[in-house]
Protein backbone atom coordinates (compact mmCIF):
# COMPACT_ATOMS: atom_id res chain seq x y z
CA UNK A 1 0.00 0.00 0.00
CA UNK A 2 1.42 3.38 -0.92
CA UNK A 3 1.72 6.18 1.59
CA UNK A 4 -1.09 8.15 -0.09
CA UNK A 5 -3.51 5.25 0.05
CA UNK A 6 -2.59 4.62 3.65
CA UNK A 7 -3.30 8.22 4.60
CA UNK A 8 -6.59 8.14 2.71
CA UNK A 9 -7.61 4.99 4.46
CA UNK A 10 -6.81 6.36 7.88
CA UNK A 11 -8.82 9.44 7.11
CA UNK A 12 -11.89 7.32 6.27
CA UNK A 13 -11.46 5.27 9.43
CA UNK A 14 -11.32 8.49 11.41
CA UNK A 15 -14.43 9.82 9.73
CA UNK A 16 -16.24 6.53 10.43
CA UNK A 17 -15.32 6.77 14.09
CA UNK A 18 -16.07 10.43 14.71
CA UNK A 19 -19.35 10.55 12.80
CA UNK A 20 -20.70 7.22 13.96
CA UNK A 21 -24.02 8.57 15.13
CA UNK A 22 -24.76 10.60 12.01
CA UNK A 23 -23.78 7.85 9.60
CA UNK A 24 -25.76 5.25 11.49
CA UNK A 25 -28.87 7.44 11.53
CA UNK A 26 -28.60 8.07 7.82
CA UNK A 27 -27.89 4.41 7.08
CA UNK A 28 -30.94 3.28 9.04
CA UNK A 29 -33.05 5.76 7.09
CA UNK A 30 -31.81 4.50 3.74
CA UNK A 31 -32.04 0.78 4.43
CA UNK A 32 -35.15 0.36 6.61
CA UNK A 33 -33.25 -2.25 8.65
CA UNK A 34 -33.42 -2.26 12.45
CA UNK A 35 -30.89 0.13 14.07
CA UNK A 36 -29.60 -2.66 16.35
CA UNK A 37 -28.50 -4.84 13.46
CA UNK A 38 -26.78 -1.96 11.74
CA UNK A 39 -25.10 -0.75 14.92
CA UNK A 40 -23.67 -4.21 15.56
CA UNK A 41 -22.46 -4.41 12.00
CA UNK A 42 -21.01 -0.93 12.08
CA UNK A 43 -19.11 -1.57 15.28
CA UNK A 44 -17.78 -4.89 14.04
CA UNK A 45 -16.61 -3.16 10.87
CA UNK A 46 -14.87 -0.45 12.89
CA UNK A 47 -13.18 -3.06 15.06
CA UNK A 48 -12.01 -4.95 11.99
CA UNK A 49 -10.61 -1.74 10.44
CA UNK A 50 -8.84 -0.86 13.70
CA UNK A 51 -7.11 -4.22 13.76
CA UNK A 52 -5.66 -3.70 10.27
CA UNK A 53 -8.71 -4.39 8.14
CA UNK A 54 -7.63 -7.91 7.18
CA UNK A 55 -9.68 -9.91 9.67
CA UNK A 56 -13.28 -9.56 8.52
CA UNK A 57 -14.52 -12.83 10.05
CA UNK A 58 -16.72 -11.06 12.62
CA UNK A 59 -18.25 -8.79 10.00
CA UNK A 60 -18.90 -11.70 7.69
CA UNK A 61 -20.51 -13.68 10.50
CA UNK A 62 -22.87 -10.79 11.25
CA UNK A 63 -23.62 -10.34 7.55
CA UNK A 64 -24.42 -14.03 7.14
CA UNK A 65 -26.78 -13.77 10.10
CA UNK A 66 -28.39 -10.63 8.66
CA UNK A 67 -28.75 -12.23 5.24
CA UNK A 68 -30.36 -15.32 6.73
CA UNK A 69 -32.80 -13.46 8.95
CA UNK A 70 -33.84 -11.15 6.12
CA UNK A 71 -34.28 -14.10 3.76
CA UNK A 72 -36.63 -15.62 6.34
CA UNK A 73 -38.58 -12.37 6.47
CA UNK A 74 -39.07 -12.58 2.73
CA UNK A 75 -36.53 -10.00 1.57
CA UNK A 76 -34.87 -10.66 -1.76
CA UNK A 77 -31.08 -10.99 -1.78
CA UNK A 78 -30.89 -7.75 -3.80
CA UNK A 79 -32.63 -5.86 -1.02
CA UNK A 80 -30.25 -7.30 1.55
CA UNK A 81 -27.14 -6.38 -0.40
CA UNK A 82 -28.63 -2.97 -1.16
CA UNK A 83 -28.96 -2.47 2.60
CA UNK A 84 -25.22 -3.06 2.93
CA UNK A 85 -24.47 -0.77 -0.02
CA UNK A 86 -26.51 1.92 1.78
CA UNK A 87 -23.54 2.49 4.06
CA UNK A 88 -21.66 4.02 1.13
CA UNK A 89 -24.35 6.62 0.63
CA UNK A 90 -24.45 7.41 4.34
CA UNK A 91 -20.69 7.79 4.49
CA UNK A 92 -20.55 9.84 1.30
CA UNK A 93 -22.46 12.68 2.92
CA UNK A 94 -19.82 12.89 5.64
CA UNK A 95 -17.03 12.73 3.06
CA UNK A 96 -18.67 15.50 1.06
CA UNK A 97 -18.76 17.75 4.13
CA UNK A 98 -15.11 16.99 4.78
CA UNK A 99 -14.26 17.70 1.14
CA UNK A 100 -10.57 16.71 1.46
CA UNK A 101 -8.75 14.81 -1.33
CA UNK A 102 -7.66 12.15 1.17
CA UNK A 103 -11.22 11.50 2.24
CA UNK A 104 -12.37 11.16 -1.39
CA UNK A 105 -9.54 8.81 -2.25
CA UNK A 106 -10.27 6.80 0.87
CA UNK A 107 -13.93 6.66 -0.10
CA UNK A 108 -13.02 4.70 -3.23
CA UNK A 109 -11.15 2.17 -1.12
CA UNK A 110 -13.99 1.95 1.35
CA UNK A 111 -16.59 1.52 -1.34
CA UNK A 112 -14.66 -1.44 -2.75
CA UNK A 113 -14.68 -3.03 0.71
CA UNK A 114 -18.41 -2.51 1.05
CA UNK A 115 -19.00 -3.97 -2.43
CA UNK A 116 -17.23 -7.14 -1.34
CA UNK A 117 -19.30 -7.34 1.81
CA UNK A 118 -22.53 -6.74 -0.11
CA UNK A 119 -21.68 -9.49 -2.55
CA UNK A 120 -20.90 -11.72 0.39
CA UNK A 121 -24.50 -11.45 1.61
CA UNK A 122 -25.59 -12.50 -1.85
CA UNK A 123 -23.31 -15.51 -1.73
CA UNK A 124 -24.63 -16.51 1.68
CA UNK A 125 -28.14 -16.31 0.33
CA UNK A 126 -27.28 -18.45 -2.70
CA UNK A 127 -25.48 -21.03 -0.56
CA UNK A 128 -28.43 -21.31 1.80
CA UNK A 129 -30.75 -21.77 -1.17
CA UNK A 130 -28.53 -24.42 -2.73
CA UNK A 131 -28.48 -26.36 0.50
CA UNK A 132 -32.26 -26.37 0.62
CA UNK A 133 -32.45 -27.60 -2.97
CA UNK A 134 -29.93 -30.38 -2.27
CA UNK A 135 -31.83 -31.48 0.82
CA UNK A 136 -35.06 -31.55 -1.13
CA UNK A 137 -33.53 -33.58 -3.94
CA UNK A 138 -32.34 -36.10 -1.37
CA UNK A 139 -35.75 -36.30 0.25
CA UNK A 140 -37.36 -36.70 -3.15
CA UNK A 141 -34.99 -39.55 -3.88
CA UNK A 142 -36.04 -41.35 -0.72
CA UNK A 143 -39.72 -40.65 -1.26
CA UNK A 144 -39.78 -41.91 -4.77
CA UNK A 145 -38.26 -45.33 -4.28
CA UNK A 146 -40.46 -47.54 -2.12
CA UNK A 147 -40.06 -51.29 -2.13
CA UNK A 148 -43.40 -52.98 -1.48
CA UNK A 149 -44.18 -56.53 -0.54
CA UNK A 150 -46.73 -58.13 -2.87
CA UNK A 151 -46.78 -61.61 -1.45
CA UNK A 152 -44.73 -63.77 0.85
CA UNK A 153 -41.40 -63.92 -0.95
CA UNK A 154 -42.36 -61.43 -3.68
CA UNK A 155 -41.42 -57.75 -3.57
CA UNK A 156 -42.06 -55.01 -6.11
CA UNK A 157 -40.43 -51.68 -6.92
CA UNK A 158 -42.85 -49.34 -8.66
CA UNK A 159 -40.65 -46.77 -10.39
CA UNK A 160 -42.17 -43.39 -11.09
CA UNK A 161 -40.35 -40.60 -12.87
CA UNK A 162 -37.16 -40.29 -14.85
CA UNK A 163 -34.40 -42.75 -14.06
CA UNK A 164 -30.84 -41.49 -13.83
CA UNK A 165 -27.69 -43.11 -12.48
CA UNK A 166 -28.03 -41.70 -8.97
CA UNK A 167 -31.63 -42.79 -8.68
CA UNK A 168 -31.03 -46.25 -10.11
CA UNK A 169 -28.22 -46.68 -7.63
CA UNK A 170 -30.56 -45.88 -4.75
CA UNK A 171 -33.27 -48.13 -6.14
CA UNK A 172 -30.82 -50.95 -6.65
CA UNK A 173 -29.37 -50.67 -3.14
CA UNK A 174 -32.81 -50.49 -1.58
CA UNK A 175 -34.11 -53.45 -3.57
CA UNK A 176 -31.11 -55.62 -2.74
CA UNK A 177 -31.27 -54.68 0.94
CA UNK A 178 -34.96 -55.60 0.98
CA UNK A 179 -34.13 -58.96 -0.57
CA UNK A 180 -31.71 -59.59 2.29
CA UNK A 181 -34.11 -58.35 4.96
CA UNK A 182 -37.21 -60.20 3.78
CA UNK A 183 -35.60 -63.21 2.16
CA UNK A 184 -37.77 -62.66 -0.91
CA UNK A 185 -36.80 -64.75 -3.91
CA UNK A 186 -38.78 -62.83 -6.50
CA UNK A 187 -38.67 -59.15 -7.32
CA UNK A 188 -40.75 -57.18 -9.79
CA UNK A 189 -39.43 -53.89 -11.16
CA UNK A 190 -42.42 -52.00 -12.50
CA UNK A 191 -41.58 -49.21 -14.95
CA UNK A 192 -45.13 -48.10 -15.75
CA UNK A 193 -44.33 -44.65 -14.37
CA UNK A 194 -41.06 -44.21 -16.23
CA UNK A 195 -41.75 -41.78 -19.07
CA UNK A 196 -38.94 -42.83 -21.37
CA UNK A 197 -36.47 -45.67 -21.66
CA UNK A 198 -33.22 -45.06 -23.48
CA UNK A 199 -30.08 -47.16 -23.65
CA UNK A 200 -28.78 -45.73 -20.41
CA UNK A 201 -31.95 -46.45 -18.44
CA UNK A 202 -32.06 -49.95 -19.90
CA UNK A 203 -28.45 -50.46 -18.88
CA UNK A 204 -29.30 -49.39 -15.32
CA UNK A 205 -32.26 -51.76 -15.20
CA UNK A 206 -30.17 -54.65 -16.48
CA UNK A 207 -27.57 -53.98 -13.80
CA UNK A 208 -30.21 -54.10 -11.10
CA UNK A 209 -31.57 -57.37 -12.43
CA UNK A 210 -28.14 -58.99 -12.67
CA UNK A 211 -27.22 -57.82 -9.15
CA UNK A 212 -30.44 -59.30 -7.77
CA UNK A 213 -29.73 -62.51 -9.62
CA UNK A 214 -26.23 -62.66 -8.10
CA UNK A 215 -27.83 -62.54 -4.69
CA UNK A 216 -30.11 -65.42 -5.55
CA UNK A 217 -33.34 -63.65 -6.41
CA UNK A 218 -35.21 -63.59 -9.68
CA UNK A 219 -36.18 -60.28 -11.19
CA UNK A 220 -39.05 -59.56 -13.55
CA UNK A 221 -39.44 -56.23 -15.34
CA UNK A 222 -43.05 -55.21 -15.83
CA UNK A 223 -45.10 -52.28 -17.02
CA UNK A 224 -43.55 -51.98 -20.44
CA UNK A 225 -45.90 -49.83 -22.49
CA UNK A 226 -46.28 -50.43 -26.23
CA UNK A 227 -44.31 -47.29 -27.19
CA UNK A 228 -41.52 -48.26 -24.84
CA UNK A 229 -41.37 -51.77 -26.24
CA UNK A 230 -41.11 -50.16 -29.65
CA UNK A 231 -38.30 -47.85 -28.51
CA UNK A 232 -36.37 -50.68 -26.86
CA UNK A 233 -36.51 -52.80 -30.00
CA UNK A 234 -35.63 -49.85 -32.23
CA UNK A 235 -32.62 -49.03 -30.07
CA UNK A 236 -31.51 -52.63 -30.33
CA UNK A 237 -31.39 -53.20 -26.58
CA UNK A 238 -31.08 -56.87 -25.65
CA UNK A 239 -32.78 -57.92 -22.45
CA UNK A 240 -31.37 -61.42 -22.85
CA UNK A 241 -33.01 -64.04 -20.68
CA UNK A 242 -34.59 -61.48 -18.35
CA UNK A 243 -38.32 -62.01 -18.03
CA UNK A 244 -40.40 -58.99 -19.08
CA UNK A 245 -44.14 -58.64 -18.69
CA UNK A 246 -46.63 -56.09 -19.94
CA UNK A 247 -48.35 -55.41 -16.64
CA UNK A 248 -47.66 -55.74 -12.94
CA UNK A 249 -50.50 -58.28 -12.72
CA UNK A 250 -48.80 -60.53 -15.29
CA UNK A 251 -45.53 -60.22 -13.42
CA UNK A 252 -47.19 -61.13 -10.12
CA UNK A 253 -48.87 -64.13 -11.74
CA UNK A 254 -45.50 -65.20 -13.12
CA UNK A 255 -43.78 -64.81 -9.75
CA UNK A 256 -46.57 -66.70 -7.98
CA UNK A 257 -46.32 -69.52 -10.50
CA UNK A 258 -42.56 -69.67 -10.05
CA UNK A 259 -42.88 -69.86 -6.28
CA UNK A 260 -45.47 -72.58 -6.58
CA UNK A 261 -48.47 -70.69 -5.24
CA UNK A 262 -51.87 -71.72 -6.56
CA UNK A 263 -54.53 -69.07 -6.87
CA UNK A 264 -58.20 -69.94 -7.18
CA UNK A 265 -61.42 -67.93 -7.46
CA UNK A 266 -64.28 -68.49 -4.96
CA UNK A 267 -65.99 -70.79 -7.43
CA UNK A 268 -62.97 -72.97 -7.37
CA UNK A 269 -61.71 -72.26 -10.86
CA UNK A 270 -57.99 -72.40 -10.62
CA UNK A 271 -56.19 -69.62 -12.38
CA UNK A 272 -52.66 -70.76 -11.90
CA UNK A 273 -52.51 -74.50 -11.76
CA UNK A 274 -49.07 -75.67 -12.50
CA UNK A 275 -45.77 -75.19 -10.73
CA UNK A 276 -43.14 -74.48 -13.31
CA UNK A 277 -39.87 -76.33 -13.08
CA UNK A 278 -37.11 -74.06 -11.89
Amino acid at each position, binding site marked *: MTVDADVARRRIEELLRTNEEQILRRWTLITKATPEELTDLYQALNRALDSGGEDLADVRGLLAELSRSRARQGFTPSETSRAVFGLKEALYEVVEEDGGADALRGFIWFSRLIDDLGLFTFETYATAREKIILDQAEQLLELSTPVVKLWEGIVAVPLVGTLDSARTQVVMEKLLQTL*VDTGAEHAVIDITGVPAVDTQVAQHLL*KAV*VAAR*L*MGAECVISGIRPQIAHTIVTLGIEFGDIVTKASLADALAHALRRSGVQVSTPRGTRISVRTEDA
Partner: protein
Amino acid sequence: MERVPILKLGDILIISIQIDLEDQSVLALQEDLAEAVVAHSARGVIIDITAVEIVDSFIGRMLATIAAMSRMLDAQTVVVGMRPAVAITLVELGLSLGGVRTALNLEKGVALLDHVRGATP
Protein backbone atom coordinates in the same frame (compact mmCIF):
# COMPACT_ATOMS: atom_id res chain seq x y z
CA MET B 1 -1.52 -68.70 5.19
CA GLU B 2 -5.04 -69.35 6.47
CA ARG B 3 -6.95 -72.26 5.02
CA VAL B 4 -10.69 -72.23 4.48
CA PRO B 5 -12.37 -75.28 6.07
CA ILE B 6 -14.61 -77.46 3.90
CA LEU B 7 -17.62 -78.89 5.75
CA LYS B 8 -19.58 -81.94 4.67
CA LEU B 9 -23.35 -82.17 5.08
CA GLY B 10 -24.77 -85.32 3.52
CA ASP B 11 -23.56 -85.20 -0.06
CA ILE B 12 -23.17 -81.43 -0.01
CA LEU B 13 -19.91 -79.62 0.71
CA ILE B 14 -20.17 -76.27 2.45
CA ILE B 15 -17.45 -73.63 2.28
CA SER B 16 -17.97 -70.62 4.51
CA ILE B 17 -15.52 -67.86 3.69
CA GLN B 18 -14.92 -65.78 6.81
CA ILE B 19 -11.45 -64.39 6.23
CA ASP B 20 -9.95 -61.89 3.86
CA LEU B 21 -8.89 -64.16 1.05
CA GLU B 22 -5.34 -63.95 -0.17
CA ASP B 23 -4.37 -65.28 -3.56
CA GLN B 24 -2.55 -68.22 -1.94
CA SER B 25 -5.56 -69.21 0.17
CA VAL B 26 -7.77 -69.12 -2.91
CA LEU B 27 -5.50 -71.43 -4.86
CA ALA B 28 -5.25 -73.82 -1.89
CA LEU B 29 -9.04 -73.74 -1.50
CA GLN B 30 -9.56 -74.68 -5.13
CA GLU B 31 -7.24 -77.67 -4.79
CA ASP B 32 -8.71 -78.78 -1.47
CA LEU B 33 -12.20 -78.52 -2.85
CA ALA B 34 -11.48 -80.55 -5.95
CA GLU B 35 -10.02 -83.29 -3.78
CA ALA B 36 -12.91 -83.13 -1.31
CA VAL B 37 -15.52 -83.39 -4.08
CA VAL B 38 -13.88 -86.55 -5.36
CA ALA B 39 -13.23 -88.02 -1.90
CA HIS B 40 -16.81 -87.60 -0.69
CA SER B 41 -18.36 -87.95 -4.14
CA ALA B 42 -20.28 -84.79 -3.39
CA ARG B 43 -23.20 -83.76 -5.58
CA GLY B 44 -23.35 -80.14 -4.52
CA VAL B 45 -21.06 -77.34 -3.33
CA ILE B 46 -22.32 -74.33 -1.41
CA ILE B 47 -20.05 -71.30 -1.08
CA ASP B 48 -21.26 -69.02 1.70
CA ILE B 49 -19.95 -65.48 1.30
CA THR B 50 -22.15 -63.82 3.92
CA ALA B 51 -19.07 -62.54 5.72
CA VAL B 52 -17.33 -61.25 2.60
CA GLU B 53 -17.54 -57.48 2.43
CA ILE B 54 -15.03 -56.68 -0.26
CA VAL B 55 -14.65 -58.40 -3.59
CA ASP B 56 -12.36 -57.84 -6.53
CA SER B 57 -12.19 -59.40 -9.94
CA PHE B 58 -9.93 -62.14 -8.55
CA ILE B 59 -12.59 -63.36 -6.08
CA GLY B 60 -15.19 -63.11 -8.82
CA ARG B 61 -13.09 -65.32 -11.04
CA MET B 62 -12.47 -67.70 -8.15
CA LEU B 63 -16.22 -68.29 -7.82
CA ALA B 64 -16.54 -68.95 -11.54
CA THR B 65 -13.53 -71.29 -11.52
CA ILE B 66 -14.82 -73.28 -8.55
CA ALA B 67 -18.20 -73.60 -10.25
CA ALA B 68 -16.66 -74.80 -13.52
CA MET B 69 -14.41 -77.23 -11.66
CA SER B 70 -17.25 -78.68 -9.62
CA ARG B 71 -19.37 -79.05 -12.73
CA MET B 72 -16.61 -81.14 -14.29
CA LEU B 73 -16.82 -83.40 -11.23
CA ASP B 74 -20.62 -83.54 -11.50
CA ALA B 75 -21.38 -81.28 -8.55
CA GLN B 76 -23.64 -78.21 -8.66
CA THR B 77 -22.29 -75.00 -7.17
CA VAL B 78 -24.48 -72.49 -5.34
CA VAL B 79 -23.16 -69.17 -4.08
CA VAL B 80 -25.19 -68.00 -1.09
CA GLY B 81 -25.43 -64.94 1.15
CA MET B 82 -24.02 -62.34 -1.19
CA ARG B 83 -24.31 -58.85 0.27
CA PRO B 84 -25.96 -56.08 -1.78
CA ALA B 85 -22.75 -54.06 -1.93
CA VAL B 86 -20.84 -57.11 -3.18
CA ALA B 87 -23.48 -57.82 -5.84
CA ILE B 88 -23.33 -54.23 -7.06
CA THR B 89 -19.54 -54.33 -7.18
CA LEU B 90 -19.53 -57.54 -9.21
CA VAL B 91 -22.04 -56.07 -11.67
CA GLU B 92 -19.97 -52.91 -12.01
CA LEU B 93 -16.90 -55.09 -12.62
CA GLY B 94 -18.84 -56.79 -15.40
CA LEU B 95 -18.80 -60.19 -13.70
CA SER B 96 -22.26 -61.70 -13.87
CA LEU B 97 -21.09 -65.17 -12.76
CA GLY B 98 -22.82 -66.95 -15.60
CA GLY B 99 -23.30 -70.64 -14.84
CA VAL B 100 -23.17 -70.13 -11.08
CA ARG B 101 -26.41 -70.61 -9.20
CA THR B 102 -27.15 -68.21 -6.37
CA ALA B 103 -29.43 -68.22 -3.34
CA LEU B 104 -30.21 -65.68 -0.66
CA ASN B 105 -29.02 -67.78 2.28
CA LEU B 106 -27.63 -71.18 3.19
CA GLU B 107 -31.07 -72.65 3.85
CA LYS B 108 -32.35 -71.66 0.42
CA GLY B 109 -29.10 -72.88 -1.14
CA VAL B 110 -29.59 -76.36 0.34
CA ALA B 111 -33.24 -76.34 -0.80
CA LEU B 112 -32.16 -75.34 -4.31
CA LEU B 113 -29.66 -78.22 -4.50
CA ASP B 114 -32.29 -80.68 -3.25
CA HIS B 115 -34.72 -79.36 -5.88
CA VAL B 116 -32.17 -79.69 -8.67
CA ARG B 117 -31.31 -83.24 -7.65
CA GLY B 118 -35.00 -84.06 -7.40
CA ALA B 119 -35.50 -82.93 -10.97
CA THR B 120 -32.54 -84.93 -12.32
CA PRO B 121 -32.11 -88.02 -10.15
